[in-house]
């Protein structure tokens, strides 16, 4: 069969839509702590190796209430939602929080958590965001070391290098399995929607990794990929959207407009699974290497690096997927994306690749207006493809 098995998939779907429920259940089952981390570069392996459940805190779908009076309305939906979750007690399942990313808005939300839950430890291992300085590697190694000390202290355990190596292998396997789904989608041999792939990635961010691996393996085993997508569909690449997943209904709406999403660089997508941790050498150093490697395999607007460019990476991935255009999904008020977007647009414009920008908000989706814009965009691409090549 060339579609996902619905029974196995629905398990993952349920967990992706209720990560806190899963975490609470796991905690009861395992009798061990749950540690919350934040996007987009935290090495979950280290928490896993300490015997706890690492969970990347997700944007909640519930309306923001208390959070309104804790973070201003001009913050991205993810950080406003996190602040709200902290204020209304939705984060109570966590025994500690850890983060590595310096985004000014994220730190605002982290401060709200510290304020709302002063008794819960919160460690900030600030990984350097300037990636190619002579001291970048040493700085990250230093931060991984302090992270290790902190996690050991909070959880009252010692992280053995062997345990970390085992966790690294489990997470690498998970990324490898997820990449297979992406690869099958890209080649058109698997009929999987963008929102379904989002479920696979999102659930991997919140589940015990070995459990997730088992479910993914089951899903893959049930596939018999052979079909090809109809040629009438316009092949698009989805770009942007850091930290939080775009609403599944938005992804569905895009695909309903005669679109086949063939690839993406979303955080809840290719960006998350882009890079493996080296399995040789010191496992703690390997986490530092992973962090630095990630921005090379999938450059990100939240990092600065002279010798890699997100725009070049985007153009290259369009070539490999055969996408006809790009939809940039931007969480409203996300500054790194607002800053990088003109460079992406410039690179695409220069190559005559159509691009459409859609802003997303926590509060909802202006479905009809988005639909009209996507349909117009798709029509434009169709016409462009029909253009008779000039004889000159």
């Amino acid at each position, binding site marked *: 069969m060339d579609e996902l098995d619905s029974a196995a998939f629905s398990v993952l779907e349920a967990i992706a839509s209720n990560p806190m429920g899963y975490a609470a259940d796991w905690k009861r089952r395992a009798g061990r702590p749950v540690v919350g981390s934040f996007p987009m570069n935290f090495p979950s392996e280290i928490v896993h190796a300490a015997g706890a459940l690492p969970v990347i805190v997700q944007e909640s779908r519930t309306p923001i209430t208390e959070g309104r009076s804790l973070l201003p309305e001009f913050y991205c939906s993810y950080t406003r939602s996190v602040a709200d979750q902290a204020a209304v007690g939705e984060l109570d399942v966590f025994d500690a929080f850890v983060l590595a990313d310096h985004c000014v808005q994220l730190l605002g939300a982290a401060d709200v958590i*510290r304020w709302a839950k002063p008794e819960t430890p919160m460690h900030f291992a600030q990984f350097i965001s300037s990636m190619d300085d002579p001291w970048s590697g040493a700085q990250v190694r230093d931060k991984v070391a302090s992270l290790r000390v902190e996690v050991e202290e909070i959880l009252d355990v010692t992280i053995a290098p062997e345990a970390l190596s085992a966790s690294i292998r489990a997470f690498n396997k998970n990324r490898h399995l997820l990449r297979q789904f992406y690869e099958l989608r890209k080649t058109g041999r698997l009929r999987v929607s963008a929102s379904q792939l989002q479920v696979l990635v999102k659930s991997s961010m919140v589940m015990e990794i070995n459990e997730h691996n088992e479910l993914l393996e089951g899903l893959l085993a049930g596939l018999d990929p052979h079909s090809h997508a109809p040629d009438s569909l316009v092949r698009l690449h989805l770009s942007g959207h850091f930290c939080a997943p775009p609403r599944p209904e938005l992804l569905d709406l895009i695909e309903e407009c005669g679109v086949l999403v063939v690839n993406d660089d979303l955080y809840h997508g290719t960006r998350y699974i882009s890079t493996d941790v080296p399995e040789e050498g010191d496992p703690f150093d390997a986490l530092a290497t992973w962090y630095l490697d990630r921005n090379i395999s999938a450059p990100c607007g939240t990092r600065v690096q002279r010798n890699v460019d997100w725009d070049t990476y985007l153009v290259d991935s369009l070539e490999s997927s055969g996408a006809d255009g790009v939809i940039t999904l931007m969480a409203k008020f996300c500054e790194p994306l607002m800053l990088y977007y003109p460079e992406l647009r410039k690179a695409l414009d220069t190559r005559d690749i159509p691009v459409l920008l859609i802003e997303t908000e926590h509060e909802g989706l202006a479905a009809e207006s988005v639909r009209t814009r996507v349909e117009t965009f798709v029509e434009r691409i169709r016409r462009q493809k029909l253009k008779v090549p000039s004889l000159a």
Partner: protein
Amino acid sequence: MTLDLSLSTQQSLSTRQSLDLLPTRPRSLETVDKSNRLKSTSLGGKMVAEYWDNIFTAKERGKHVVWYNGTALNPIFQAAGLEWCHGEAFSARLAAMHLEGPAQQAGEEYGYIGELCSYARTHLGCAVMTQKGITEKQSGIVGMVDQDELASKLPSPDFFVNAYAGCSTGQQWDAMTYRVFGKDFPIFNVSLPMIWGNKKDSGYLRGTEWEKTPLYVEEQLKKLIEFIEYQTKRPFDWGALSENMSYIKRASELRLEAMALCAAAPTPATYWDWVASIAPINFLPANQMLVDYFQAVKDEITQRIVDNVSAVQNERYRVYFDGIMNWNKLGFLTRKFAEYDVAVVAGRYTHDSFWQEPQLIDLDRPLLGMAQHYLICPINHGLKIMEELLIKRCDEFGIDGIAFHSTRTCRAMTNPQHILARTAERDRGIKTFSFEGDVADASFYKDESLESGLVAMLESIDQQRAKV
């Protein structure tokens, strides 16, 4: 006349005059300007204008030009014989002169969205215009850029240096400027970690985190100097750096002494005078003129105390200003607060920034003190330290209320405001209000949010006083 210049905060508090504490009065229809700004700060305006005029001719004078953002690296640039263009400073200047339009429009055309930090988008717009200017020169096609616009006058950079504390946007902004110029000029990044303040021993200027982090930054500053030496092909003048820092240290001491005098009630100078003095302390050349400027400011304040001259006629409320400055509205806000008998006495942006701990500057090891100052930028602390600083300032200046400028596009400055407001009320019973505006985009300013919030806060202060 020589006066005792070493009035401590404690002394000034005890010399407080009694305030007229009648409840909020209805305003007269005809609003008179009740503010009384310092005269000495006008010299600063002249110094700043001359500084920029000089920058605009840097290329003709064969100078190396560095574009930089964030922390005050200028003493290093000055010692290296460079000309320095501070991104935020130029954006602020354009906004204060109401000349930000063309740069913001150029930024918008390039693709920057209106919700992006307006300092960044204004400055990136300038970069777009400067880059077009370069293309014009190369292509011989003129007219794409109006050379008369102030925004287009920045000389193109020879290289960039970024050292932005607290705000991730600051670093990303320069990474984009670097790309607007087609990566043609090198960029050097100094990474400034947050002082997160999570440990038991953490606090303002204390704890292991505080002791360790500046050393890491100091090492990067040494590398920066090697980079500059490579760019300029000249050995760095360490003696000049110490000399520059000696002027800065003295200017800073004078500034702080003068600020401390404003603990007196009514205050002889306001936050707005300190805003007018930001440019000199933040990026003007370190020299005797800088010291003289702050000496003159302090002298005028001292004299005002002697003559019993206040900065706001009939001061009845003492307010602290939290948030980055709204540069489009400097004069307007000065008059507006004074109209309600409010003396804005101190603020996070003015009092917890800009070489505010001069005792840290060791002329024999200037880079360490500089690194320490870069790390105590008021947006580079975690919440606990912010709370500590806010309460300290409120106590020092006898604050009755806090105005939070909810700066639409500067998330770094607005980050902790809601919580700080709760802390001030909880710990000191201080009333607060929040109003909407922006650092360099006038369209976000909401007069009604200022007016209604301010009146409501003053009424609660009145009620509180009536109870007492």
